[in-house]
């Protein structure tokens, strides 16, 4: 979706301001939100692509004015309600009122913590041979899906060069909407600054994205 989350190349957000000696969490609740998202994801309530899609789907003014972990909380609430794990009324009242919906991997306990600390594996068997190889010129397709995608707007329609094939991986566009893993080849594609930003671009700038094969066509 063409949301405000897709920020590459936008103007007007001001300077980058680093906070000296920034703590891992600024308040206790930030850590709790992170833990809930990780635990409910590991228990099978949603996958990482769905959780990104729900955060992107927050109204633009909410997305832009909420802190990072507030976005995570709002996305988590929306997702758990949409998937039938909790009711709106339950969240408002702070107590369970309805029977629980079974989780795919069951209740999340302390024995499951190690599972969330190791990164997931996204490599899968390919469904077809790779169409592109390192050195191929490719154009990022002019796609505007209304649902989740990992093809940023700023590269669409532009020509780059394949640098590396990362193998076939879970396709976020499918996984986010419950349409299965639908593995696709993933490539690092490099663009010249001027190709993306025009004649005023920094002449010594190159930008790469990791693009799934359905995002690309031969150029």
């Amino acid at each position, binding site marked *: 979706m063409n949301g405000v*989350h897709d920020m590459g190349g936008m103007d007007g957000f001001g300077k980058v301001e680093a906070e000296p000696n920034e703590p891992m969490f600024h308040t206790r609740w930030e850590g709790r939100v992170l833990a809930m998202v990780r635990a409910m994801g590991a228990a099978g309530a949603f996958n990482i692509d769905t959780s990104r899609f729900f955060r992107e789907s927050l109204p633009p003014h909410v997305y832009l004015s909420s802190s990072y972990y507030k976005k995570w909380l709002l996305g988590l609430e929306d997702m758990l309600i949409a998937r039938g794990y909790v009711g709106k009324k339950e*969240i408002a009242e*702070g*107590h369970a009122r309805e029977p629980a919906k079974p989780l795919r991997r069951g209740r999340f306990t302390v024995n*499951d913590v190690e599972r969330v600390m190791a990164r997931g594996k996204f490599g899968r068997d390919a469904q077809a041979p790779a169409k592109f190889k390192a050195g191929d010129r490719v154009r990022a397709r002019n796609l505007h899906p209304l649902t989740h995608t990992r093809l940023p707007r700023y590269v669409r329609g532009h020509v780059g060069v394949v640098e590396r094939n990362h193998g076939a991986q879970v396709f976020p566009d499918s996984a986010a909407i419950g349409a299965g893993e639908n593995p696709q080849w993933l490539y690092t594609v490099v663009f010249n600054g001027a190709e993306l930003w025009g004649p005023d671009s920094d002449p010594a*700038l*190159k*930008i790469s994205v*990791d693009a799934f094969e359905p995002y690309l066509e031969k150029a």
Partner: protein
Amino acid sequence: MELRVRALETVLSEKGYVDLAALDAIVQAYETRIGPHNGARVVAKAWSDPAFRRALLEDATKAVSTLGHVDRVGDHLVAVENTPERHNMVVCTLCSCYPWEMLGLPPVWYKAAPYRSRAVRDPRGVLKDFGVSLPKDIEIRVWDSTAETRFLVLPMRPEGTDGWSEEQLAELVTRDSMIGTGFPKTPGAPS
């Protein structure tokens, strides 16, 4: 916010979805186990051991998995090397993808709009915000983390560190130098 978060926690616990003790354990694991010290060890090792450096650039996941003292990184880690001709910088324009196992949880600025919007278009301007400047003729390569690949910048080894141990070298490696928004500390400079 505190109340709203507590409300959701209570609902999840009452419905039997999560043990509250497990949430405590997750927070504790993040607070104690991950952080830039993991990445710093990897960088220091690459600076000291040419065979490891080659292995790291070839397949970072595999190379890091041979170091017993670094937490498992899962798949899809890629190390990108700074050279006198090229500087690398990592961003996630779409959300906040970041090599947690190597660097810990990302700082607020990494996840915020100014960095995400400008890093791909005006990386030298972003570096200026960090008080860093690069000669004009050095190529800047920005890596937008749009999939599950995670990038670790391998900065250049500071001069004046001949004969230093890996432990000493690791002290010079900053978090920002592994994102590409800074450089390692200079030996002998006040920290």
